[in-house]
């Protein structure tokens, strides 16, 4: 097993862990954390593909690495927007979970308010 393959399996496990946390933790902040773990697992897989593409004297293929840098920045901006939404939700309703829509009455109430 090469070191790139080792980190590839590590990235696969991280994707599974992040997905599990995203599904099972009801608090929004924990979902955001799990989403970041999931994203970093995907980036790690990209990094493995980059490392395996080492050629022409370079240590790794630079194109997937540039994609990962772009991905990290975009993931941060998504996290920032999600956190701002969470803080606003908490200020308005005092909740830290997103309540599911229960019935049609609450939908009609929301429309008329």
């Amino acid at each position, binding site marked *: 097993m090469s070191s790139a393959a*080792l980190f590839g399996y590590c990235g*696969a*496990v991280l994707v*599974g862990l992040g997905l599990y946390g995203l599904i099972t933790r*009801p608090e929004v*902040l924990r979902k955001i954390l799990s989403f970041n773990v999931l994203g970093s697992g995907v980036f790690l897989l990209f*990094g493995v593909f980059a490392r395996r593409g080492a050629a022409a004297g370079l240590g790794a293929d*630079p194109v997937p690495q540039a994609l990962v840098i772009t991905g990290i920045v975009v993931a941060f*901006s998504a996290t920032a927007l999600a956190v701002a939404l969470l803080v606003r939700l908490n200020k308005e309703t*005092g909740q830290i979970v997103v309540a599911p829509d229960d019935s049609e009455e609450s939908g009609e109430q929301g429309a008329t308010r």
Partner: protein
Amino acid sequence: MTLVFACEVVLAGLLVAIATWTIVARTAFAAIVLFMVYGLLLAIVWVALSAVDVALTEAAIGGGVTSMLLMGAATRLRAPTTPVADVGLPLRIAAGLLCALVTVVLGAVVFFLPDVAPTLAPVAKDNLAASGLGNPVAAVLFVFRALDTLLEKVVLLLALVGVWSLASDEAWGGVPGLPVYARPGRILVFLAQILPPIGIIVGIYMFWAGASQPGGAFQGGTILAAVWLLTMMARLQDVPAINARWLRLLLVVGPTAFLAIGLAGFFIADSFLAYPPGIAKPLIIVVEATLTLSIGVTLALLVAGPPERLPQR
């Protein structure tokens, strides 16, 4: 099994353990601290994968600014009046099976990868000299796939507009609610006086060296954002109101310069975002310099959050 590979096995095991602990931690504070540790360990993994630019970005943005953002949010959240109900066991088991399936499929993808990997490294290396840069990742970011970088910068601005739009009506266009110390102690003020000059030098150096060594505009911009946030939190500078003209000018100077040079490519080179040979490197340096400034201001404002009060006259 060589010594280096044994160290990498330990590193990968530690990474998975910290990620698991982050997911199952009981308090939000513990989970965020663990996430910060996870980000820094991941930066070491990136170095082990020969991706030093990505390691710098991960340490700065993933392990630094994201954790700061999440910690600020965790301290601002009020505890709910009704306790949060945990999900039931059937959902946990179903989710566990689904995630195990996803992990196994991805592991199989890694296992069945072809022996000779397709790569664009020779193509990048051949065209590197024409761009005048020495860092292949910087060349990919600003020359070969410059459209991705331009759009990424626009996505950052869109996220900032989204965050600003969450202000309430009274505070529209006001001062962001970045948590600042009411009475900062002398030692925090000392740190906020001594660290920003060093941070500015390191940030500019990282952008400048990114042309030929690992580094770049994003990493340098993040350091500038971090030291600006530090001075604001220690109350050495006021948090600016978001309708301040100089602030909005700094935000747009980066993408505007990038877009202008890209459109000029229609006239002085072949196509959009093409650079004429000979002055490619000065143009890229101009783009990177303005982008560093804009990224610093944008990231700091993303952490500061939506406006919460009007500026006192």
